[in-house]
């Protein structure tokens, strides 16, 4: 019997090729999208799940009462103090410091940007697999170095050759390769190519200053220890070691423990150097997957039902010959499962082919784990759920027919059936319109953000990081040399370029009782000029005022406003950075607000001081030959830092990177909406064909009675477009609600204008109409004699 069913199912598929194609194709696209999203979600939720001691590992965070995100950086002394003060609770403490370094051997040298300085226990705490070397030994001696497999091969061709080789780190230290680790998997929040023992740096001054932000500290708790209980003891601990500093600088913070598995999704500041994900995005994607699958399912049901009617004779006969209702239900559900299986097989093929493209879209390496259960469970789930859900309506609908009616081909899809099918189409198109609205609003918001008046000049501005000893020690020369070059307009050395790093410090301000928290920028006198900022009151830093370096600051309008001053009033006020300055400085000027943070964040107070802290050189070029100017910068760079490769970026590119995730989401949403529309239209095309066939006689009669082709076109299309109209009416308020909520993420929002919704409606209608017209036109143009004879 089953063989017979499969045979019939296959031959039916083969017989109506067009229908089968729509049927299978629609479902295949749906399943493929779902699998892509599934792979992505599996990757997101499998973050750091490979660490054997994962359940006991925590990252120690500093939590400030007025900040929603914690600070992941601690200073060097914490780890030892924690081990010392909580011997029963903390078994291990490992410091990890993200860094970069110049590695050279023979006549080759490489800048490694993913270099970790870590405690010797690093490979004991984390389960990063070592291909060579013993976890307890590889970082034991300060002269040890561990390379990733890829790095080892890059240097020496093979991991065997790499072992035992001597490398020079930062032109100073001789390091011996003692271990090779397998490349860090994509589902790890930590990511490195090279690991160096942190013991090389423990004697440095900065390392032992408690208040510094320097490195992550991971702890392994005892199995019987409770993280929450331990956290309760931390205020005392902080007071013991940091009490004096906190009183002096006016800080207040405590320590918290973030479980390893939560690090990836914890809300983090932009400066946390480890990989982070956004749960909202995961949920958005899950919703999209569900919606697309629903659209595909609805298509499937509608098309199956329509097809089933065409098979009424077969159903009738089977009943006459003794088939019971459950035989038929089984047969049709089975067929629907067969179709789903075919679709799943096709989807797997498409997924494998599309993987490289998908990786690029996601921006990181995901892979499908074909040798583990979840993907198969997912596929089986899809087959059962879709095969069953989408197959059951036509199955029950068909098997309920009386055999006589079925045999005579007098099956009518009743009014309630029509209502059901139309409701399904309404659901489909509501989702489609919703996705289109989402896509339009997101695109609009992105272009709004990009086109926003930033308040600074981002064109033709080159950023060169001051990230190695040579450039750091010679940055003055670097600047002076550049300033003499023809293509360079101005150069400024600073702590953070717009969109970059802005530490938050506390200030004592004249006439204010409370300490004032503000973002800080440390920059030289060319800062305002180079970024093209405007001074609204007072003056810029100037070499004419010898005391400026030690005694002046600039503030932005927001800082003045928050302090309760007008720009004019702020001039001359005394202000003292509690962390950095020994004596107060005076406000010499107020700069017009500019967006130094991401546009997702509201403008914040900013205090610009000429005190030392230089991390980037920002170079404003004159309009003209960009290539030449870059070559010039490179030449100067190689004079001052000959062994280091020249790295640079453009400020406007940097700006795009800030919104990289948003742009990715936008692209993905656009692609998925496109697919949703496509699948929904496939279904509509099916419905249109069905309507055209069903109404052949009516069309014939109308034509004989004198109806014109446009009249008939209007008649057929009108009926089919009704559910699309209803869907649009439902989707617009929903779209407004959801997108309004999404826009709340941004400090600067594009308004939700009426045309967004009109455009979504228009796009949907346009595409739907186009789909329907193809079939309607055929029916309308047909010779009435033929259509009447067919009855």
């Amino acid at each position: 019997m089953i063989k017979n069913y499969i045979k019939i199912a296959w031959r039916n598929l083969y017989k109506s090729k067009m229908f089968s194609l729509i049927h299978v194709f629609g479902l295949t696209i749906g399943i493929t999208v779902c699998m892509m999203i599934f792979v992505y979600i599996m990757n997101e939720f499998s973050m750091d799940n490979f660490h054997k001691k994962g359940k006991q590992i925590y990252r120690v965070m500093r939590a400030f009462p007025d900040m929603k995100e914690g600070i992941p950086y601690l200073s060097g002394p914490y780890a030892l103090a924690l081990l010392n003060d909580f011997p029963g609770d903390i078994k291990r403490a490992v410091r990890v410091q993200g860094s970069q370094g110049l590695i050279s051997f023979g006549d080759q040298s490489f800048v490694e940007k993913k270099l970790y300085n870590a405690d010797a226990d690093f490979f004991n705490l984390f389960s990063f697999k070592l291909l060579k070397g013993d976890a307890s030994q590889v970082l034991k001696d300060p002269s040890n170095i561990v390379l990733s497999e890829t790095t080892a091969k890059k240097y020496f061709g093979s991991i065997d050759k790499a072992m035992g080789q001597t490398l020079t780190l930062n032109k100073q230290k001789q390091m011996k390769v003692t271990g090779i680790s397998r490349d860090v998997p994509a589902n790890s929040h930590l990511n490195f190519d090279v690991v160096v023992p942190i013991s090389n740096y423990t004697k440095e001054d900065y390392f032992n200053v408690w208040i510094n932000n320097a490195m992550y500290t991971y702890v392994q708790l005892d199995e019987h220890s409770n993280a929450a209980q331990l956290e309760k003891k931390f205020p005392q601990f902080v007071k013991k070691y940091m009490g004096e500093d906190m009183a002096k600088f006016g800080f207040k913070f405590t320590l918290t423990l973030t479980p390893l598995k939560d690090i990836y999704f914890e809300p983090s500041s932009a400066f946390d150097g480890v990989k982070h994900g956004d749960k909202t995005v995961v949920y958005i994607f899950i919703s999209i997957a569900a919606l697309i699958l629903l659209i595909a399912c609805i298509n499937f049901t509608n098309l199956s039902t329509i097809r089933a009617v065409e098979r009424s004779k077969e159903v009738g006969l089977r009943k006459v010959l003794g088939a019971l209702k459950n035989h038929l239900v089984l047969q049709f559900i089975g067929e629907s499962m067969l179709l789903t299986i075919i679709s799943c097989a096709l989807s797997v093929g498409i997924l494998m082919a599309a993987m490289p493209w998908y990786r690029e879209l996601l921006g990181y390496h995901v892979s499908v784990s074909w040798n583990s259960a979840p993907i198969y469970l997912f596929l089986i789930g899809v087959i059962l759920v879709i095969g069953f859900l989408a197959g059951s309506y036509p199955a029950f609908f068909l098997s309920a027919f009386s055999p006589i009616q079925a045999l005579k081909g007098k099956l009518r899809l009743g009014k309630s059936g029509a209502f059901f099918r139309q409701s399904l189409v309404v659901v489909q198109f509501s989702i489609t319109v919703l996705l289109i609205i989402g896509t339009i609003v997101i695109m609009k918001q992105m272009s709004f953000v990009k086109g926003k008046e930033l308040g600074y000049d981002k064109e033709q501005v080159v950023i060169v990081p001051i990230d190695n000893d040579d450039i750091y020690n010679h940055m003055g020369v670097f600047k002076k040399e550049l300033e003499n070059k023809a293509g360079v307009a101005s150069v400024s050395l600073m702590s953070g370029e717009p969109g970059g790093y802005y530490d938050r410090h506390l200030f004592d301000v004249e006439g204010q009782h409370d300490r004032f928290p503000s973002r800080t920028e440390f920059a030289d006198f060319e800062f305002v000029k180079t970024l093209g900022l405007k001074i609204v009151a007072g003056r810029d830093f100037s070499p004419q005022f010898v005391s400026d370096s030690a005694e002046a600051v600039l503030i932005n309008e927001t800082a003045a406003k928050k302090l309760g001053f007008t720009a004019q009033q702020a001039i001359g006020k005394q202000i003292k950075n509690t962390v950095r300055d020994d004596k107060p400085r005076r406000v010499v000027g107020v700069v017009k607000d500019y967006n130094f943070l991401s546009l997702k964040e509201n403008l914040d107070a900013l205090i610009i001081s000429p005190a030392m802290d230089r991390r980037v050189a920002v170079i404003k070029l004159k309009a003209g030959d960009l290539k030449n100017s870059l070559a010039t910068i490179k030449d100067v760079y190689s004079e001052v830092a000959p062994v280091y490769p020249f790295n640079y970026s453009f400020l406007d590119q940097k700006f795009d990177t800030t919104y990289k995730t948003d742009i990715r989401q936008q692209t993905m949403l656009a692609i998925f909406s496109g697919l949703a529309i496509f699948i929904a239209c496939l279904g509509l095309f099916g419905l249109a064909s069905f309507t055209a066939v069903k109404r052949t006689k009516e069309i014939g009669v109308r034509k004989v009675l004198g109806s014109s082709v446009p009249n008939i076109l209007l008649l057929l299309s009108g009926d089919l477009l009704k559910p699309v109209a209803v869907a649009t009416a439902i989707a617009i308020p929903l779209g407004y609600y959801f997108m309004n909520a999404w826009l709340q993420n941004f400090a600067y929002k594009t308004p939700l204008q009426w045309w967004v919704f009109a455009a979504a409606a228009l796009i949907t209608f346009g595409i739907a109409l186009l789909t329907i017209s193809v079939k309607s036109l055929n029916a309308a143009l047909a010779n009435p004699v033929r259509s009447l004879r067919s009855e």
Partner: protein
Amino acid sequence: MIKITNLEKFYRTEEVETIALNKLSMEVNTGEFVAIMGPSGCGKSTLLNILGMLDDPDAGSYVFNGTEIAHFNERKRADLRKHNIGFVFQSFNLIDELTVFENVELPLIYTGVSSADRVKRVEEVLDKMQIMHRRNHYPQQLSGGQQQRVAIARAVVNKPKLILADEPTGNLDSSNGNEVMELLTDLNEQGTTIIMVTHSEHDARYSHRIIRLLDGQTVMENIMV
């Protein structure tokens, strides 16, 4: 074999009620070949559907082989039907997606005959109908006469006691029609009861008895000699 008494069947639409069978009574004995005749709309097809247990009467009694089945549910009717009754239709009603062999095999699948037995019995009956050489063809590749022979093969493969034929020659030319009637007569001679609805006086002459219907009632019975 069949005894119906005061059988009634109505068709209702929203406003009109049509009487298809009006207190109809008749009897058919085992081994008989009965033709039912009458103008369009007289209730012939309704009667055949009820006799074939495809439809149930609104009132009256239907005794099949000594069992009252007028109020049987669908499952019981289906069970009784598949073991006892074969159908032959005017438009053949073969499944286009199945081959000749598979079409004939279908009733055996539903009665749970084993695969090996099925092959044997289908081949036997195809042989008898002289259509064996077409076993792997699809219905649309056959002539009308051949299709009807396949349909008859399908009707008899389960060795039913009763064959219901609804205008079996209606879609055939006269020579093919005669062939089909010969086949039915052969089956009858081997003991199968046959009830046939027909418009054709010529076909009716193959039967033992003609029942003439008008407006859902028997108006005349002719015994053929």
